[in-house]
């Protein structure tokens, strides 16, 4: 009881009120995140509807293997995050830290793979901008070369796809980096013994956030990587 009281901020009347407030706040935050990514998804959908072939071809440059691998990594990280929240509910400080570290490692793997993919795009001149160059060479991938897909007129639309690819995955990666920062903060708090059975809202909220970031990727992966497999 006394332990719980010490975490009650001065302006709340009870722990319950405090917990409900932070939970509602987090859900509202996620609602605004949905609108944020929603704007991007709408713009992407409109262009994809306009230029279905070009988007399919452009998507063929992306490595489904890496994408699928990253999807698995991220789902695993959601699992470890959920376990960290569970540990927090049980008041098990050691396990909180272990699971959060595991989550962070998985996140780093994800970002590392993303880095590899970005570098690859850079070497293929597929980063949008003045240096963008579209060479209809699909050796590494399974998109067939036809007169249509190899046509230079495609370049503009392919570049459009890559603009969205980089903005969307970049925004997603930025959210992950922020998540990593939050987890470092959690570890510091946990080391100082701030969490207890009564007070673990920060772990829970970070967990919600992390699951949201995961879900965004679950949408991004098929939208960006699997376009041509319809």
């Amino acid at each position: 009881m006394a332990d719980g009281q010490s975490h009650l901020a001065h302006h709340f009347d009870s722990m319950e009120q405090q917990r409900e407030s932070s939970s509602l706040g987090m859900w509202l935050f996620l609602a605004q995140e949905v609108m944020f990514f929603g704007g991007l998804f709408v713009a992407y959908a409109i262009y994809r509807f306009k230029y279905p072939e070009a988007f399919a071809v452009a998507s063929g440059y992306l490595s489904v293997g890496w994408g699928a691998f990253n999807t698995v990594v991220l789902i695993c990280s959601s699992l470890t995050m959920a376990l960290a929240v569970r540990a927090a509910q049980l008041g098990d400080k050691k396990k909180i830290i272990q699971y959060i570290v595991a989550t962070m490692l998985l996140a780093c793997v994800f970002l590392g793979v993303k880095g590899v993919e970005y570098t690859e795009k850079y070497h293929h001149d597929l980063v949008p901008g003045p240096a963008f160059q579209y060479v209809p060479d699909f050796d590494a991938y399974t998109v067939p070369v036809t007169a249509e897909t190899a046509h230079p007129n495609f370049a503009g639309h392919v570049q459009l796809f890559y603009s969205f690819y980089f903005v969307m995955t970049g925004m997603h990666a930025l959210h992950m980096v922020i998540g990593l920062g939050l987890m470092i903060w959690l570890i510091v708090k946990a080391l100082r013994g701030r969490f207890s059975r009564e007070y673990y809202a920060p772990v829970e909220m970070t967990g919600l956030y992390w699951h949201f970031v995961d879900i965004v990727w679950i949408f991004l992966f098929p939208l960006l990587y699997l376009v041509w497999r319809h």
Partner: protein
Amino acid sequence: MNERFPVIPDQASALARDVDMLYLFLIGVSAFFLILIGALIIWFVFRFRRTSDTDRPAEIHGHTKLEIVWTVIPLVLVLIMFVWGAVLFFKQFRPPADAMEILVTGKQWMWKMQHPSGRWEINELHVPVGRPVKLTLTSEDVIHSFYVPAFRTKMDAVPGRYTTVWFEPTRTGSYHLFCAEYCGAEHSLMKGWIHVLPAEEYDDWAARIDPDLAELTPLEAGERLFTEMGCMACHNPASGALGPNVVGLYMSEVRLDDGRTVIADEDYIRQSIVEPMAKIVEGYQPIMPTYRGQLDESQLMQIITYIKSLE
């Protein structure tokens, strides 16, 4: 109208009077409510002014019937406005089939226009009185907006697509032409005049083409471009031609290789020239090169005019 202090601009098209009628209706409704509300406020403020610092007026929670009244009356009024405005709007933007077509290109910061006779103009547009005129608009750079207050009409000129606007002048004279969409440093200089001439005078005017400039009609220019750019090599009516036939193409239904059908309007034809891969006609190979950069917007409009004429 009061000459020295006008509140309504010149009415130089049939539509102008219609729009003004609607405008006056709106003003009437607005004035009624404004005066009603203003008078009630002033009356209440005097009638119910505070006389003693300890006044405690009786409580009034609300009045359901009153609420319904002042919900339903405005609702009916706005529905009238909506229908009237929408009907007029459709009239404003549905040109009659026999309208004379003038091609208009906006660029920072001028308007370029070509008449059916071939005559070019910049920032000044001569049109005949009493004949419907349809403008096809596009832009070479940013979004502009073609605005003629005396005709009560306006349309954006958007890069990469065609928009249309039409009017039928009813009075001769000169009227302002403005660019209404902010387009950069000299936006306020992107303006000119619409000169409405008697019909015969317009015909004479349009026929006076400067021989040095060798101005062709849009149709002739389009035909020449069609030949010069070698379009004929593939797009001929012969069977087994490499490209789809363009005779009778305009406004026909085209089946694409992905199963969709589209109507071949101006935007479709334009896109097929500058982005040939966007829509492939069923049964043809995607082999056409793009003509983006090789044809400017005026030339594109001329070729389209020519293709539209083929029947």
